């Protein structure tokens, strides 16, 4: 027996992997983790991808996802070991004593059923409430979570509400059967920062009101610091440290945690514009057909060797700007000047030199590289295509590029699948550098990476900029990244340029309402930051 209501002891989790061309082998992904949780407390689980945080979160409901097996240890919930109660016992437990909120609410709701039906389902299934009772409770939760028109909200279908609202609806679903424990698995990661803050506040308030205990899984330390009482830092399936949220943020005892806390705090000194701009967008208006204009009269300049950060939430037109500049989407009005000359609007009309001097790096490095080509082919192709370099000379230059991105010769014959996320992104950087470009468009290049890896990529980009004098058009939704790389900033909102200027100009008050909202919504590594922002901000997110 145990004194805590959730007591995980020596939890070991394993899986079978199938490496190509080899025999399947069993690996251990969580190596003996202990967790104790008191009633009504919130524990944040934090770590980089592959740390085992989601796996541990799910194990507290006795579940292993996608071939993952709990191979050892005990999970006591309300005094009994749930690993020993069998499938029927687990069925009675899940959705009643423990509930789950997933990262993608959009993928978790059944699109063919109304929200209310899905939200009260588990309460009815377990006989916790009558239907009328459960629906009344759901409406109360809708109100507490700040959802619009709580009486009628449940009558909508999942596609009729926004992403932030859907995530809150899923929280209502988790709260409905009055569980003792809720597992939140990255509930705000897929949301815009401006929406995230409201969902975060709603979740925190709901936890406080109902007194439910929670495990909050995320990779973002600043987020978890706002909602948790305790934080446990995980790495490679082992605990690094566990302490109160306050101590972890202000006085961590381990080096790894210190690195996590200090990440994103680096500031990049702003450079003054020199010479003629390499890229000038003049009054660009673009549309994907039809009457809806996704870009309205956008103008911006970028100088050689500098970084222009384009920021904004999803749907603001950031990526469309990139598509217009690359020629994938010819604008309906306006023109683009590149290095002083007018660039033909469509890709097919541009010369090989136009294409060479304007390169692009993508968000998802693993789909930006052909999985059937070796790293040598991927990086060597632009050398051959633009400069006609072949054979031994090409290999030599490729190795030189690999050295530049800090990977080295040993990578040349490998395939993309054999590389980590950060390494893949480095190869994509090398591929664009091989063309000796004047401008590289970086579309959310660090968004899919763990914070420490992302920091390394940003540092590499800055070093290369200093060396090659290449300009970056850096598209991102993450303002912390902007601070550490940009020389000038363009804030976009609903297809328009909201605010534009040098970094200092844009980040110095007075702000317009939207810029204020965007800037204030970026989570900071401070306890009590959430409450402070909610009390002082000027407008709400468009997602509400």
């Amino acid at each position, binding site marked *: 027996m145990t004194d805590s209501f959730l007591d995980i002891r020596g939890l070991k989790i394993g899986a079978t992997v*199938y490496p*190509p*061309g080899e*025999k*399947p082998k069993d690996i251990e992904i969580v190596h003996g983790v202990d967790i104790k949780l008191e009633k009504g407390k919130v524990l944040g689980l934090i770590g980089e991808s592959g740390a085992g945080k989601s796996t541990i979160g799910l194990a507290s409901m006795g579940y292993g996802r996608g071939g993952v097996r709990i191979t050892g240890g005990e999970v006591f919930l309300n005094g009994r070991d749930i690993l020993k109660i069998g499938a029927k016992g687990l069925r009675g437990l899940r959705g009643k004593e423990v509930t789950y909120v997933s990262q993608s609410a959009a993928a978790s709701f059944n699109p063919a059923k109304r929200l209310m039906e899905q939200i009260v389902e588990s309460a009815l299934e377990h006989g916790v409430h009558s239907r009328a009772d459960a629906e009344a409770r759901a409406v109360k939760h809708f109100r507490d979570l700040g959802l619009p028109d709580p009486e009628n909200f449940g009558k909508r279908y999942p596609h009729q509400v926004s992403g932030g609202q859907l995530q809150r609806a899923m929280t209502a679903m988790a709260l409905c059967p009055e569980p003792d424990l809720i597992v939140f698995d990255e509930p705000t990661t897929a949301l815009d920062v401006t929406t995230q803050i409201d969902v975060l506040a709603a979740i925190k308030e709901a936890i406080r009101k109902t007194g439910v205990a929670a495990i909050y899984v995320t990779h973002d330390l600043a987020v978890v610091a706002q909602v948790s009482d305790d934080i446990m830092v995980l790495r490679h399936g082992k605990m690094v440290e566990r302490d109160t949220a306050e101590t972890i943020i202000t006085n961590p005892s381990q080096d790894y945690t210190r690195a996590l806390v200090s990440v994103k705090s680096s500031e990049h000194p702003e450079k003054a514009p020199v010479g003629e701009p390499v890229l000038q967008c003049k009054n660009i208006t673009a549309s994907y057909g039809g009457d809806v204009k996704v870009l309205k009269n956008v103008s911006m300049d970028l100088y050689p060797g500098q970084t222009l950060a384009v920021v904004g939430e999803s749907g603001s037109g950031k990526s469309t700007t990139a598509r217009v500049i*690359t*020629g*994938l989407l010819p604008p309906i009005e306006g023109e683009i000047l590149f290095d002083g000359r007018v660039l033909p609007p469509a*890709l097919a009309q*541009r010369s*090989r030199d136009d*294409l*060479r001097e304007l*390169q*692009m790096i*993508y968000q*998802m490095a693993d*789909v*930006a*590289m*052909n*999985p*059937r*080509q070796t790293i040598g082919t991927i990086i060597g*192709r*632009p050398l051959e*295509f633009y400069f006609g370099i072949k054979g031994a000379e090409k290999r030599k230059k490729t190795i030189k590029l690999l050295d530049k991105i800090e990977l080295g010769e040993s990578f040349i014959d490998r*395939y993309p*699948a054999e590389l980590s996320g950060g390494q893949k992104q480095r190869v994509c950087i090398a*591929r664009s550098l091989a*063309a000796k470009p004047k401008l590289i468009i970086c579309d959310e290049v660090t968004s899919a990476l763990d914070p420490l890896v992302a920091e390394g990529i940003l540092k590499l980009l800055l070093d290369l900029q200093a060396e090659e004098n290449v300009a970056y058009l850096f598209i991102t939704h993450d303002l912390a990244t902007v601070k550490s790389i940009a020389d000038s900033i363009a804030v976009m909102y609903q297809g328009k340029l909201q605010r534009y200027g040098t970094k200092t100009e844009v980040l110095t008050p007075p702000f317009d309402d939207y810029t204020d909202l965007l800037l204030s919504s970026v989570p900071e590594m401070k306890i009590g930051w959430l409450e402070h922002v909610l009390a002082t901000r000027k407008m709400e997110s468009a997602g509400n």
Partner: protein
Amino acid sequence: MRIPTGALIGLIFTSSFFLMAIFAPLIAPYGMAEVVGGVWEPMSSKHWLGTDNIGRDLLSRMIFGGQVTIFIATAATILSFVTGSVLGFTAAVIGGWVDQALSRFVDLVMAIPTLILALVILSVMPISILMLIMVMGFLDATRVFRLSRAVAVDINVMDYVEAAKLRGEGRIWIIFREILPNALSPLIAELGLRFIFMVLFLSTLSFLGLGIQPPSADWGGMVKENKEGIVFGIGAALIPAAAIAILAISVNLVADWVLSRTTSLKGGRG
């Protein structure tokens, strides 16, 4: 590399069928159309599989028939794959009206039952081996077109293809270097299946009298020649029928294994 038992059996049977087809004149004990005994003689040491409806050695006809069947099926499969996949990839990469025209034409051809269309064409055209290969190959190319277009449309929107387009690569590079290597595993599995369909298709045509013409042998035609024997309890028709079935199953086993091998990069098993 460990080969699963099923695939191993498939490989052994498939390769022995192909070897038999290649070396047919060397292995066959008698000539293809040589009458060497009585009608429907039972199996004996002289005629291992007995004789057929006019006294020809069944084993020899099986071997020569296998050669014809496998040769035509292979040639038609290659033809259908080359035309189908090149057109399918082109439609996917170019898109627009080219895609519309090709796809609607393929819909049109597929709307007519293949066998009936083949029967109509073959009943007005002179029947020769070349004609059979062309008719079977082009009719089947519609199915390969659909598959390869669907696969290529998926790949065409991947970032690495966009990166190649932004680099200024031509269509030939995009089709053969970016799309084809990634479309290969579903296509190879389909290759096996299409080969089997070709064998069945040819056998059906011959059984109906519009395929290989006597006295040349092929398995479908041999079923037809000997089918009257079944009512007298003579199993001569069952031997070519069994050969068709065994070839179909063993090629399928190999295709299955190839599919699971080539997709193992993306987490497949076995």
